[in-house]
């Protein structure tokens, strides 16, 4: 079974499907069906890989390694370990959600719309699988293109300006990271390994301390923009506000996660010394982001903008956990990112439905939706509670692990993270209050969830419950890779917490 190029299949299957889509561009129904089948195929493939290689007899990592540009040591090398597998399955799942999230945004040019989503999936899978730095940087830049067009063509309102803002922010960061990758390659070429961009080789490359810090800063700036950390977060609320529902799903569920994943996978092991130096700064930015975004979210007037700021808050906490040096908190950050992808995916889908039904998502015309659409209300409240880290739902597992881990290493950061649980609840309850409850402020009718939307939200709810009550499989997948990464950066950390 190992001979099949599973990982390439994961990456290129959506891309091939995207290329086939224009064949049926006249027929919207056919496009939707084909895209949904392609995404389901991707999910099935990811599931099959999980069963084959992470089942009862785990056989990870799965590796594909081919020479690509030998003179420069660039290889087409992919590797799938437990950590990658979590995000690969998540990507496939969010992909399916994107396909059923909206029947409104795709009306203009369905073939292009679904092709862009599939292309985005393909590049994101590439980021989660690449183990060659050059290849990684390539996918990192490539992911901007489909999302740029998705926002720029299918967005609402001032979409082109927002798409350009998104692109410029991300490209600036990406450019710096690309320079750093090249610098790293040049440094390594003079070393014992010869020219190489392989992550494992570069991890052991001797990089001078000062140079390492600059390169780390370049990497982290790029990741911080993607995560996004305060103060380089300004593109995100705008992008979410104008993006189509599927675009928001991809942004919140996948793009933000690539930032966190890359921080764990690349920035930490490549520059352990610099990671130590910059950890206080990143922790401070993450925690400030948590409180800042929570406060700003409370004042928002648009549902999607509020959820966008909540993403910034949650990801800030995740960053603080990633650099904390506690393995428990690091594991918690991974669970929090997965959980956030699910809950914010649900919330953005629901916010998109509000926009489709009422033509606006501003709080001044919302309210009283529970009475008009009880199933919608229940789903919305459920996602809010999961986001508020109610125990038993997915958010709690991540936050609890982060808090417990932080208390071990940095007690004051832990205290602040605990306090963050209260400010998070403040804006989430405001979201519930002004959307679901109170008198209806708009005379327009509001249809309850139809079968497609119910299926989407039920699937997300099941995942949220499973992750909240039985996180065991995810945790055991993440444990090995995280332990080895943490071992590189914090070798002295006592085992067991």
């Amino acid at each position, binding site marked *: 079974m190992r001979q099949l190029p599973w990982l390439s299949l994961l990456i290129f299957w959506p891309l091939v499907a995207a290329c086939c889509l224009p064949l049926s561009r006249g027929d919207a129904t056919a496009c939707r069906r084909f895209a949904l089948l392609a995404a389901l195929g991707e999910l099935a493939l990811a599931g099959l890989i999980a069963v084959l290689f992470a089942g009862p007899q785990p056989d990870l990592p799965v590796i594909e390694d081919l020479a690509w540009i030998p003179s420069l040591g660039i290889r087409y090398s992919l590797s799938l370990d437990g950590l990658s597998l979590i995000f690969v399955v998540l990507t496939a799942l969010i992909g399916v959600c994107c396909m059923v999230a909206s029947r409104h945004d795709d009306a203009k040019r369905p073939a292009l719309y679904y092709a862009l989503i599939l292309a985005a999936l393909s590049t994101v899978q590439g980021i989660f699988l690449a183990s060659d730095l050059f290849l990684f940087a390539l996918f990192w830049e490539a992911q901007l293109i489909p999302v740029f067009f998705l926002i720029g063509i299918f967005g609402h309102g001032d979409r082109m300006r927002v798409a350009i803002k998104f692109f410029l922010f991300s490209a600036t960061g990406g450019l710096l990271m690309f320079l750093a990758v090249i610098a790293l390659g040049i440094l390594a070429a003079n070393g014992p390994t010869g020219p190489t961009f392989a992550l494992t080789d570069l991890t052991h490359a001797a990089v001078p301390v000062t140079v390492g810090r600059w390169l780390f800063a370049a990497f982290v700036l790029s990741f911080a923009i993607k995560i996004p950390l305060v103060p380089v977060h300004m593109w995100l609320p705008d992008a979410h506000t104008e993006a189509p529902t599927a675009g928001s799903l991809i942004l919140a569920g996948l793009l933000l996660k690539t930032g966190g994943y890359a921080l764990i996978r690349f920035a930490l092991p490549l520059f352990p010394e610099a990671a130590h130096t910059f950890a206080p700064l990143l922790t401070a930015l993450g925690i400030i982001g948590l409180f800042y975004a929570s*406060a700003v979210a409370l004042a928002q007037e648009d549902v999607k903008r509020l959820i966008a700021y909540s993403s910034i808050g949650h990801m800030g906490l995740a960053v603080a956990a990633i650099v904390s040096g506690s393995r428990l908190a690091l594991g918690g950050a991974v669970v929090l990112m997965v959980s956030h992808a699910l809950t914010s995916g649900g919330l953005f889908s629901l916010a998109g439905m509000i926009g489709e039904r009422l033509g606006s998502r501003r709080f001044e015309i919302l309210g009283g939706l529970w009475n008009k659409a009880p199933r919608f209300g229940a789903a919305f409240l459920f996602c809010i509670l999961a986001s508020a880290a109610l125990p038993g739902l997915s958010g709690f597992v991540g936050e609890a692990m982060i808090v*417990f881990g932080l*208390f071990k290493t940095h007690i004051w950061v832990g205290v602040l993270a605990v306090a963050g*649980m209260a400010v998070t609840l403040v804006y989430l309850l405001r979201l519930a209050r002004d959307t679901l409850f109170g008198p209806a402020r708009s005379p327009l009718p509001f249809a309850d969830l139809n079968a497609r939307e119910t299926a989407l939200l039920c699937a997300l709810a099941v995942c949220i419950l499973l992750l909240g009550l039985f996180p065991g499989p995810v945790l055991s997948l993440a444990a090995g890779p995280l332990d080895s990464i943490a071992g590189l950066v914090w070798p002295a950390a006592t085992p067991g917490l």
Partner: protein
Amino acid sequence: MTTLVALMLFFPLAGAVLQAAFSRSLSRAASGTLAALAIAASLAAALAAVWNLGVAPHEITLGQWLAFDGFSANFSILYNRLAGLMTVTVTFVALLIHLYSAIYMREDTSFARYFCYLNLFVFFMLIIALADDLVFLFMGWEGVGFCSFALIGFWHEELPNVDAGRKAFLMTRVGDLGYVAALAIVIAASGSASITGLTAQIDAMPTATATLIGFLFLFAACGKSAQLPLSSWLPDAMAGPTPVSALIHAATMVTAGVYLLMRLEPLLAIAPDVGATAAVIGAATALYGAACAMGQRDVKRILAYSTISQVGYMFLAAGCGDVSGAFFHLQAHAFFKSLLFMVAGIMIQAAHEEHDIFRMGARLRRAMPGLFLLFACGAAALSALPLTSGYFSKGRTLADAIAHPGPAYLLAFILGAVAAFLTAVYVFRLCFVAFFSDPADPARLLSDPELARMERPLWPLAALALGYGFVNPPEFMGLKPWLDVYLAGTVTPLPPNVEHAEFFVEMIDAVLAVSGLLLAWLLYRPARHPVAAPAGALTAGLGLDAFYRTWIAAPYCRLSARLWRGVDEDMLDGAAMGAATGLLTLSRVAARLGSARPSTTLTTLLGAAAALLTWLALRLT
């Protein structure tokens, strides 16, 4: 035993899931029956489990929840006699309240949602009662908080109701931060947090750590049990349906904080400062609640402040380390306070949703004599008239305080005794005004046979309110204290000096209660035509709520708006836009240098050549 405990938890959860899944197709009667059946089955399982329970506790693990890098949390249960009695109390009161609710909600269209939340609440409450792992317990702890939020704001078309629910959720969440911090400290030390684990390691724990953890748990308990300083959510919580107030905000959830302290008794035993603080907080809250109850006109708010006050007595007993005494008062209070709340629900419905006791009056008593009798039973127990359940249980808590050496406990005793006197005054103020007076502007009375049917589930509670005290009579009466004996193997036994103090305290208590009654009669007897005092500091809960609004909520909202408009939009986004504009200007300038006019191009070319030559010249020299 595992099966019984699992079934006890399973039935309410299954009930809630079924209500949610079939919310459209269930008829009103089917919905109510299903919910009550779920609780009845749970009660049966709880009774059977208690029946089979010996002195030795059962430690049951239903499965693993989390395990990562040395940290683990399990779905584990510590089923001892305290938990056994608590589950029986919870399910018993909940069953009666479900039966009552089926009639109370007879005109509401969202009955399925109501019963779903109610069943879910019982499920989470049972988790609190049973859980051994403190992380698992936290699931119940937050779960009841959510159910409370959802049920306070049950009539969510009215935003004030939703806001009341939101306030309850937020304030209890603030308390829960203490819980999480305590958990984190315990887990950082040993990798897991469970009651049995804490008890086993208690000897190795330094006092400072134990005190810190104890204070954090105490803070959480204060939030959940509406004790000072986190008490201001409970009066507003009365926005919910009255049976909800009876179940959640009187009988069960607000006592969860005390119950947590009881379960953590070994920890409190080695941290005496925490116990003393709990006792003083409890006594101060008892006085605060009793005083504020004097200033209310809304029958439910009177009872809410009364709950705050009575839970204070439980804190007092738990702080003195008397678990069985605290539990005794918890049970007695659960019976008489849920009785009083449900009576209040009937009073309010009978008076056409009028909450003001100054608009009810003697006509209500004449129209519904059974209701008055029920109320009298509850009022007698609450005001601790001799030989009622409240008399024995409250006396026990005061005896704990006076038997404990130390000025803190003496202070607690004095506060508690004054509060006991005020309790009798406000209870009989309520009684005389609502059932005897002759108001100038009475509310119209509703005559509905359903109202009489709602009284039926209350009679068992009335009997318990009067007679439950004899389950645990004080020593001087020469009767067997069943509850103390039953719990003897589970919790620290009662020190003998408490038993000796009880005679003295019970005498004082009786005098206080009767004199309170007399004072209330002097002030509020029908012949005096009592009128409501204008709203004052007591009505507003001594300004505690206003304090939080002015000094925490409002500044946070202002900060939030300023951060968004000022920092996020103007500063950060402005800086990005500024950079973009700067680049654009730069590119315009550059573009002009190479524009179509030959003269500009030539100038630029020559200028560049000159600059290059200058630079070269400078380098070469």
